[in-house]
């Protein structure tokens, strides 16, 4: 690793101020960023560690009944404490491995927007709101392609707010070497319709499968998906699976998710 300074702010205000330094980079749990730095794929001058910002940690229920998760909350904490949203807690409980879950954070995962990460599917599938130090961003506006988000330079995810669906499930087909999703599908059924978010598959990162959403909104059963398929064009193709294979897996995982809760 190239060397860098580390700032360890205790408040959001101090973190935002530190992010104003030249070539500053926010550090969540570091489970992606530190390996990236070791490979010298990034060379920030300053890392602003968010793990000591107490006001960005924890899980609670908002006045409107939404689940609120602080941006610096670890996957392990979400898995343990997000009991009002069991599908999300279950998803968090299968990210990486136990030691990774004790460090990795929801804000870090969302800011990175890895095309195979789990949280983007959970957030987009839930229609959650990404709250930053300056604004609130709807999930539909937040994800802007592989490793790309709506975040501005220096902007910090302070909280994520999830509406609680009537039913939800996440199905992950694990790529066994990396433990990331080869394909992951998050299905959430709300009173006004069903959302289906897919991670691991598209070259554009997480996306909503609108045809499946329409079919499931009128008939929430795995059978409603019969005949629906996605094209392999634009899907990630690598040594772990072709685009066509991933496209097929999306339909299989969506059916499994619906079967799990329908």
């Amino acid at each position: 690793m190239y060397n860098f300074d580390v700032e360890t702010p205790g408040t959001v205000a101090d973190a935002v101020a530190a992010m104003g330094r030249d070539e500053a980079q926010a550090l969540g749990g570091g489970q992606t960023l530190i390996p990236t730095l070791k490979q010298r794929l990034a060379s920030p001058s300053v890392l602003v560690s968010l793990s000591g910002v107490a006001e960005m940690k924890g899980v609670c229920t908002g006045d409107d009944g939404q689940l609120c998760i602080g941006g610096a909350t670890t996957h392990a904490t979400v898995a343990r404490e997000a009991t009002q949203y069991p599908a999300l807690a279950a998803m968090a409980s299968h990210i990486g491995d136990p030691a990774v879950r004790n460090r990795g954070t929801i804000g870090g995962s969302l800011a990175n927007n890895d095309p195979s990460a789990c949280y983007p599917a959970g957030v987009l599938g839930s229609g959650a709101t990404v709250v930053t130090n300056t604004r609130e961003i709807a999930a539909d506006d937040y994800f802007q392609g592989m490793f790309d988000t709506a975040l501005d330079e220096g902007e910090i995810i302070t909280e994520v707010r999830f509406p609680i669906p009537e039913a939800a499930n996440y199905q992950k087909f694990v790529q066994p070497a990396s433990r990331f999703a080869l394909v992951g599908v998050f299905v959430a059924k709300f009173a006004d319709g069903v959302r289906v978010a897919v991670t691991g598959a598209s070259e554009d990162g997480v996306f909503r499968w609108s045809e499946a959403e329409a079919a499931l909104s009128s008939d929430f059963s795995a059978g409603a998906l019969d005949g629906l398929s996605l094209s392999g064009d634009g899907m990630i193709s690598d040594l772990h699976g072709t685009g066509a294979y991933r496209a097929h897996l999306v339909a299989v995982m969506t059916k499994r998710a619906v079967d799990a809760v329908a």
Partner: protein
Amino acid sequence: MTKIEMTVNGRAASGDVEGRTLLSSFLRDELKLTGTHVGCDTSQCGACVVHVDGEAVKACTMLAVEAAGSEVTTVEGMANADGSLSVIQQAFQDHHGLQCGFCTPGMVMSAAALLKENPKPSEAEVRDYLEGNICRCTGYHNIVKAIMAASGQDVAPVAAE
């Protein structure tokens, strides 16, 4: 350089570190606690697992400055006060839970973290918890046996003899 202080295995420890100094480097190079092994250095293998404020973390994927003020436990802190092996360590010896021993510190630390949150895990839960600990010698079966034994459970039913 930044001066950091933490408690390691119950004793005060301090040192001057760079921003990029990993917790694993601080423990091994500064404090000379070489029981914490660095296998892959890419947060895959788990040989470097230590406890920070009671939680298992990969010491190769945490900055030393982030552990400032914390209570850190390494494999050197696992033995009983009289120097005898802890229940988990003894179980690894009794059940041949190691061959070359390189992954063992991380295995022991992960096992301790598991048994703290789940004192009587099933075999499947043990295997699931060890997802981030890689061993290239044992095929895991004897490690699983050792952890089942350390939890006070019968090891006879453990699969794949």
